[in-house]
């Protein structure tokens, strides 16, 4: 399956992915409602977007007590709004912190790869987010380790 591949060194921190995502997922241009989140590193001199890896276990999906999380046509774990009751069990089961909850709708929501045309990848002006048929991975780990090493060392 295709997944979102993050190339953190290309991210400029422009937040267009968050705007595109929130609009696609909730109809609002509101970064707080985006399921891809740009994080700053090194005192806001580096940035990288972070989102669901579509992990093999699908901790959110197996935890859901009413079968409200399924696998959609492009292989993404996806919340069925008419089944979700908003119990938040998925938010504590997901060990990546990529389940979200909308207090307005009382539903959980997450990255569903926009059904195969991810808005974040389309909106990114520097191709820091690409939609590719690769094995999912820890795209930010090495980047963040290197960028934060200096901060942690400096703070010692």
């Amino acid at each position, binding site marked *: 399956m295709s997944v979102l591949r993050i190339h953190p060194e290309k991210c400029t921190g422009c937040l267009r992915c968050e705007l595109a995502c929130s609009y696609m997922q909730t109809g609002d241009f509101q970064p707080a409602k985006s399921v891809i989140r740009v994080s700053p590193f090194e005192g806001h001199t580096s940035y990288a977007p972070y989102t669901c890896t579509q992990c093999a276990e699908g901790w959110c999906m197996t935890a859901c007590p009413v079968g409200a999380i399924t696998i959609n046509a492009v292989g993404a774990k996806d919340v069925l709004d008419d089944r979700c009751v908003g119990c938040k069990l998925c938010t*504590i089961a997901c060990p990546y912190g990529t389940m979200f909850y909308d207090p307005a709708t009382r539903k959980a929501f997450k990255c569903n790869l926009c059904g195969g045309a991810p808005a974040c990848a389309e909106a990114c002006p520097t191709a820091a987010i690409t939609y590719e048929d690769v094995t999912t991975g820890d795209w930010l*780990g090495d980047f963040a380790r290197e960028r934060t090493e200096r901060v942690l060392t400096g703070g010692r």
Partner: protein
Amino acid sequence: MAARHLIIGGGTAGMNAIRTIREEESERSAITLVSAENPYSRMVLPYYLDRSIAESHVFTATGKVLADWGVTTHLGKRATTLDTKANVCTLEDGTTVAYDDCLIATGSSAVRAPVPGADGPGVHSFWTLDQARGVIAQIQPGSHVVMVGAGFIAFTILNSILALGAKLTIVEVAPRILPRMIDDIGAQLVEAWLKEHGVAIRTGAKLTRIDDLKGRQRLKMAAGGDLVADVVIMATGIRTNLDWLKGAGVTIKQGIVVDEHLRSSVPNVYAAGDVAEGRDLISQANAVHAIEPTAQEHGRVVGANMAGKDIRYRGSLIINIVEVCHLDVASFGAWDDTQADAASGVKADRPAYRKLLWRGDRLTGAIILGRSSDIWTTNDVGMLKGLVQSGVSLGRWKAHLKKNPFDVKPAFIATKTTSALLPVTILGRPSKAPGETPVAV
């Protein structure tokens, strides 16, 4: 002859076991389900109580689905004896079911405070679907509901009671609320938050008796200040349903002692969920975790092993979350470990609290409180779970988190926790979606 699997209990553990057997088996087996109730999810009963979902929404498998899965059912009947020498289970109506292997997943029942009048009319438990039906019929806008007990179960229905327009008073015999879910500081913050939101709370309050006053209930309190309620809900704890197993020959301590395959002391008898005393992921000691996620993981591991796979279970992690009046309250792992190295932080401008606990440089427990509308609360909840579950070495990030307990995300990412988590699955393969369970052809 195809294997004959007997599943006793149609809750989360039992239903996950059935689905997993069907997913994993190479040759179709015979599955029999014995359950005192039709299968439903206890987790969603609060949403039925506040009428945000219909009753039909609570069921996890209808008769048609069970038939499609090829499951023989004995619903509405309790198992009364298990003969582990003859491999036969007897039900309350005398029906006998022979098996090759069996799963005991009979869950827990609500218990009431041992005071006169606790079983009287107008006094309810909120644990089963039948009990939920009893409560939903009684609460009207303006009703005064008194909840006895301030634990997790009580808090799961707090929002629903308020949403129905009722006035709520909570009485708790212990000096504080949520004693088994968060620490003293967290409990104080939640108590203050609830009082601000119009919930009356009396801690250290001992109930001595309940009297029926022509349909209303008077709760006599030891220290005086009696309460009069339209509805009393007893949320005073649960007890595992193990009494029926006396003489069955399975070793029982706090629960049925199970090994890493979730087998009891009788090799062809498994136990899962609330009745099982299995390995705790953090301490690696045996414990009863009467929580939904443990029941789900136990059920799937048992299902795979019943289907002939060799799945060892690494142990279950205590995780709890409850939202009260738009405040998220969650805890993970060994949050009450008094020997752990701990750090905590409170935000002065809003209700937000973190407590992090370490053994060495590994996070072994966490408590988190924050407003549901704070998006980082939800994200941190998951990442704290990931750090505790994976046990990644935090190295220098430990000192950083001790100073900045709210700065979870960079620590999570830079310690490559994602790399540690991605290969982990419960069954050694990608999970299947709920609708993918093979059906009979």
